[in-house]
């Protein structure tokens, strides 16, 4: 399973935009994501990758670009 592609699919569902060329863009600063979309993303990630990310572990500064989200998923899958 290609984690990056799956994450980008989830983000595309939420933001309506293909972010594959914008991996390091701050998706909160540009208004693509908000708290509601974050919660939806966490639940989708949970469903897709069977990883458990509680809201407490969601620090915006650590999840604010597509690349960071991908590495977060990779790290939690390796735990």
């Amino acid at each position, binding site marked *: 399973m290609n984690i990056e592609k799956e994450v980008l699919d989830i983000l595309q569902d939420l933001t*309506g935009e293909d972010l594959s060329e914008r991996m390091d863009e701050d998706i909160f600063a540009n208004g693509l994501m908000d*708290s*509601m979309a974050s919660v939806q993303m966490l639940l989708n990630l949970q469903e897709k990758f069977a990883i458990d990310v*509680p*809201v*407490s*572990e969601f620090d915006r500064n650590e999840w604010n670009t597509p690349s960071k989200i991908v590495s977060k998923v990779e790290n939690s899958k390796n735990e």
Partner: protein
Amino acid sequence: MNFNFINLQPYTNPQYFVYLMIGLVPIIIGLYHGHRLKIYEVAFSLVFLFLIFDGDKWQQGVNLIIYLLFQLLVSYWYLHYRQNGKNKTWVFYLAVVLAILPLVLVKFQIAFPKAPIPGVLAFLGISYITFKTVQVIMEIRDGAIKELDLSTYLRFLLFFPTFSSGPIDRYRRFAKECNVAPKRDQYLADLEIATRNLFQGFLYKFVLGWFFGTYWLPKISKAALIAGAANGGLKFSWWLVAYMYCYSMYLFFDFAGYSLFAVSISNFMGIHTPVNFNKPFISQNIKEFWNRWHMTLSFWFRDYIYMRFTFFAMKKKLFKNPIRLSQAAYLLLFLTMGFWHGLTWYYIVYGLFHAIAIIINDCWLRYKKKHKEQIPSNKFTKWLAIFVTFNIVCFSFLIFSGFLSELWFGWK
């Protein structure tokens, strides 16, 4: 003259800073040399806390101590429960209810002073300690906090610079910093920022805040009451408009000034307390405004109410439509914020007003996204957005000020 007691409320006058600075000297020298003088820091915090509750406020101090013991009991009971691997939802709710119970009682006490609740007495800082303990319980529930070092926890709850009105720090962030000394380069950079923040705080609180709040506001208030009585009906007048802007400026400079002091003194102590304000009046919409105004409070509500509620509701599929869910969550968040400010109509209406404003804002953002090509976006629209947001915000502060209550009903 009465020399029996000294009572000092935090950051209320320039002289206070002289005492603070004297007290800070050993801490600064220690940190500069890479040592954190923990015992001295605790003594420093306790002395200044003692001065808040000294003299005629001693009963508040006693209540603070009882309240703290109660909060420790709740936190450690729940931590112990979770450490045993148990995780029932009702136990979590019980822990949260117990943690906010004293604050709820105090709010009732303030709203209905004629019906005293035995043993309940408001004291400075109760709201902000409650934000911290509730946060800790929620993170224990999530398994994000697995250990609670008693001395670190107490220092977190009683950290003097932010004790009275925030900014609200996070336990895990604070715990990482409070047992080590920052690197010298980092500390020197912090000192520079701390000094600048301190002087900006003086300018905000003691100059601008004073002009708007102490010098102009009472005059405008009098004029607005007289003009209102003369006009009759809803008692509107241009003086009321002046009051709205003047009060808004006062509120910002007074509270942003206080927050700068709190962040500055924290930095002197090698603690990076999060900032509370980030140029709120350049916000282009209400959503952005709440990311810039009283940030640690709005982020607290975002993380511990809005996100938790939406996460829970979505998991349980309580709402079919995520847009409806987010609207319900906004109502929950801002109404809670309103009630937290106090059980008075204008605080609750203030909360409701912001909930409706942010719901409309979200609708507009969705519409804008769909019709990207048709809607112009340029320098003019940007300034228009800032202008509209600023005025909506100022109007909400007029509600918040309670002045309408005074104007219409003669009480505040």
